[in-house]
């Protein structure tokens, strides 16, 4: 066929780029994500300039034609090679890339209305999911403000895992609902999310971890999950390539899933807009106005918008945003690094996580291994740089559990921030002002919880009685001392 290719790693054509641009994905970061250009093994070395030239031809502004973020490794590098570096000798530093100050920013996706019934701050899956669900319930006077491009925050940076294997009935209930929504999301929203129920396999390398998964399996059974505790031999039937001498038992739920995160964000955004909401990207909140116990308006770098209700769904930026209103949240951003390998034919069914060291990995529908690993030495702070230490730690952990991956290459690493709270549970409900609603503090599992949570929040905002999560996970619980920690955080 007579196609004109722009990116031959992903078979993306000039026509694909034009279509994306016309849909409103105008800046290079957004075009890259929507079309796939630059996401393959060459990482944009063969297409960045021609993509920029095509965008200029289509009428993009200089602020929109800024190269997509560069990340290590410069060339695909074997996990086996990176595993030969001693992670303990490598620093946890700011990482790369260091960014020069931006000269020009992309223009906002549209003008800011003078007022709105609901102003949502944060264009991640929480904010966009809420905007969509409000619209579905007839509340369509909704304006969502996003400081950058859609998928620029944790919703575009996570590993795409959706699991019901939690430790409390509440979290299990929310996750199960999100999994159900995942089944129908593509058909309902008209965009593929590549939702796949490949299961989650948690590996327990110590007797203490075994005790933990056995205890959880009982809770799971009580809450209707099909979780089973497997012997190493049984786990090997699920993942034949695994080294079954490295763990004592495994927790297996075949109904857990992995998705591709970006389309969830785009799907919610475009359906919300079709129903009447206004999504404004590249619009940054600079302050709030208040009267007594109510916020009255939101100030942005694009002007002022009066609001009846303001929702803080700013993820890792939630604390910073609340501070602009004089409200102190206990949330702290914390960097979590992640990487993706070259694409392989399917060989790995589930998402695998090692409870001993926090390693997790799955195979995306494009065939890449996508995975991360928490670093206990990571300091709090809003950083998104990539470190060599992570490459080395992850590669050692992965090649230990799946030795054949030593012959697979890392294509790209990146990082995002968890929005961490003292008890690993979210901050919901009003805080500081009666109409300043919180929807943050999800500690790395916001993406998987958002479909369910935003439904419940929209129900509540539309007049239904609040779900227990909105009375339980309030900011005031810390003053009341009513906290019960969630201990099944991974990644």
């Amino acid at each position, binding site marked *: 066929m*007579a*196609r*004109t*290719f722009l990116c*031959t790693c992903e*078979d993306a054509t000039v*026509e694909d780029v034009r279509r994306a641009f016309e849909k409103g994905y105008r800046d290079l970061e957004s075009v890259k994500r*929507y079309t*796939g250009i630059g996401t*393959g093994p*060459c990482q944009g*070395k*063969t297409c*960045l*300039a*021609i993509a*920029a030239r*095509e965008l*200029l031809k289509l009428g993009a502004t*200089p602020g929109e034609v800024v*190269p997509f973020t560069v990340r*290590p*490794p*410069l*060339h695909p*590098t*074997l996990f*086996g*090679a*990176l595993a*030969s*570096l*001693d992670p303990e000798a490598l*620093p946890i530093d700011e990482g*790369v*890339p*260091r960014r020069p100050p931006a000269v020009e920013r992309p223009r906002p996706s549209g003008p800011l209305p003078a007022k709105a019934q609901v102003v949502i701050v944060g264009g991640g899956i929480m904010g966009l999911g809420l905007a969509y669900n409000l619209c579905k319930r007839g509340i369509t006077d909704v304006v969502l403000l996003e400081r950058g491009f859609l998928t620029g925050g944790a919703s575009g940076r996570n590993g795409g895992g959706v699991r019901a294997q939690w430790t409390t009935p509440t979290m299990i209930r929310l996750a199960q609902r999100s999994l159900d929504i995942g*089944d129908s999301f*593509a*058909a309902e*929203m*008209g*965009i*593929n999310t590549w939702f796949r129920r490949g299961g989650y396999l948690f590996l327990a390398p110590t007797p203490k971890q075994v005790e933990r998964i056995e205890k959880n399996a009982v809770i799971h059974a009580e809450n209707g999950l099909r979780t089973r505790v497997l012997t190493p031999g049984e786990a090997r039937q699920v993942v034949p390539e695994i080294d079954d001498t490295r763990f004592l038992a495994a927790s297996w739920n075949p109904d857990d899933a992995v998705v591709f995160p970006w389309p969830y964000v*785009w799907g919610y955004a475009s359906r919300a807009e079709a129903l009447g909401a206004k999504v404004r990207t590249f619009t940054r909140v600079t302050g709030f106005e208040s009267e007594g116990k109510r916020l009255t308006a939101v100030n942005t770098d694009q002007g002022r918008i009066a609001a009846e209700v303001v929702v803080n769904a700013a993820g890792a930026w939630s604390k910073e945003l609340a501070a602009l209103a004089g409200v102190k949240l206990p949330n702290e951003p914390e960097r979590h690094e992640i990487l993706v390998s*070259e*694409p*392989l*034919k*399917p*060989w790995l069914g589930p998402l695998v996580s090692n409870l001993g060291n926090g390693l997790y990995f799955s195979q995306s*529908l*494009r*065939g890449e291994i996508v995975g991360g690993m928490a670093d206990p030495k990571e300091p709090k702070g809003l950083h998104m740089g990539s470190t*060599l230490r992570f490459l080395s730690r992850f590669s050692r952990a992965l090649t230990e559990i799946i030795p*054949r*991956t*030593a*012959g*697979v290459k890392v294509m790209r690493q990146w990082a995002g921030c968890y929005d961490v709270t003292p008890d690993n549970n979210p901050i919901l409900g009003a805080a500081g002002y009666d109409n300043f609603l919180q929807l943050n503090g999800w500690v790395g599992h916001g993406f998987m919880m958002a479909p369910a949570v935003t439904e419940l929040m929209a129900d509540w905002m539309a007049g239904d009685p609040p779900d227990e999560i909105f009375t339980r996970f309030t900011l005031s619980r810390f003053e009341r001392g009513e906290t019960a920690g969630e201990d099944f955080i991974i990644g």
Partner: protein
Amino acid sequence: MGRLAEERFASDCTILVDGHPIPARAGERVTSALLAAGQPLLSRSAKYHRPRGPFCLAGSCSSCLVRVDGVPNVRACQTPCREGLRVETQNAVGGAAHDLLGAIDWLAPHGIDHHKVATWNQLVNRVAVSASRKLAGLGLLPDEVPAPWPEASDERFEALVVGSGPAGLGAAEALARAGKKVFLAEREPALGGRLRCRLDLAEDPPLEWAGEVAEAVRRAGGEVARGAAVIGLWPGEGEATAAVVQAGEPPRMRRVRAARVVLASGSWIQRPVFERNDVPGIHAARSLAVMLAEDGVLPGERLAVLGRGPEAEAVAARFAAAGLAVERLDGEIATARGRNRLSGLDLADGRRVPCDALAVATARMPAAELARSVGAPLELDPETGAFRVRPGAGGAVAPGIHAAGEVTGPCSAAEAARAGREAGEAAARG
């Protein structure tokens, strides 16, 4: 097609491509052997299963990924030949030439919008997702557990120079002359960068200069590392850390720390934009020139050369002298012909140019990734879309880090050498 009939280019080993023996010269790249054998087809593309063959021939694009001795997604253009090397094509059912899944390309003449396909119904979607998973991915997981790599080294030098083209050579020479212990990292097995094309353009430094610089670096206590790919550069307190994959037997990782860095990483070829611009047989002109000079490889019988300027002119002259029918294109290309191999080009003005290989000598993009990762300021050239590094005095782009040569925009080899020397001198002072 074939090779120059010179003794030094005679083949001395055999590699196996999907089981078929191909004559090769030990140490040359797999792509050299394949092009000399008239086989520019290597695999099938990710989405539409279109025929794919090597394009950049310099380890930057992904068009030549193959399975080598059981390891997936290896760049054929970066793989040295040796007796019995096992090369397998990827992502094709029934061989790269007659891939049954090539039907996908024909069944979707207007393209496949992967966001929308099969989203009209939940059941259909589930089936489509499952089928997509089976189709996705390129290579297969390795057959065996590879031998472990030796423990990575931790080394300190006074200066790191990335790239040994004219700019890198100029920088390394200046630093060595100032008495600095230099680590000169070159990803290719030979020094010289574009000087390896042997085009001998006016004022070009001779390739022999690379040997002199290497000697100067060694005399000052430094090291010239060939086959050393810098995969990342992390700035730190008073020094930067580079992660280097060092080819060799066995290969190893090196952590190289240096207070001064000169980035002379050159440029990447960009795929020219026209219909069917992915047909095997379209290659970077510089790489073809290197293959001609070093391996005597003739990429076809009729070569078209795209691009203006002295480099395009010299490449055309070299291949004409080697006996190929060469045509320089002076108009815009509308479409390429041929399926598994280029058979001709239709120009926008209606002319048809028969050819079985195209040498691309159009604008290249600065290889600015490492410079960008340390925060170098950039400038967009609106005509080519290329982002070039915009250095300050002495090539400075970040504390202790300098850039020179094509990474800062198009320049001749002589200009690059001069800028490299200035950057090296500035780095030595700093």
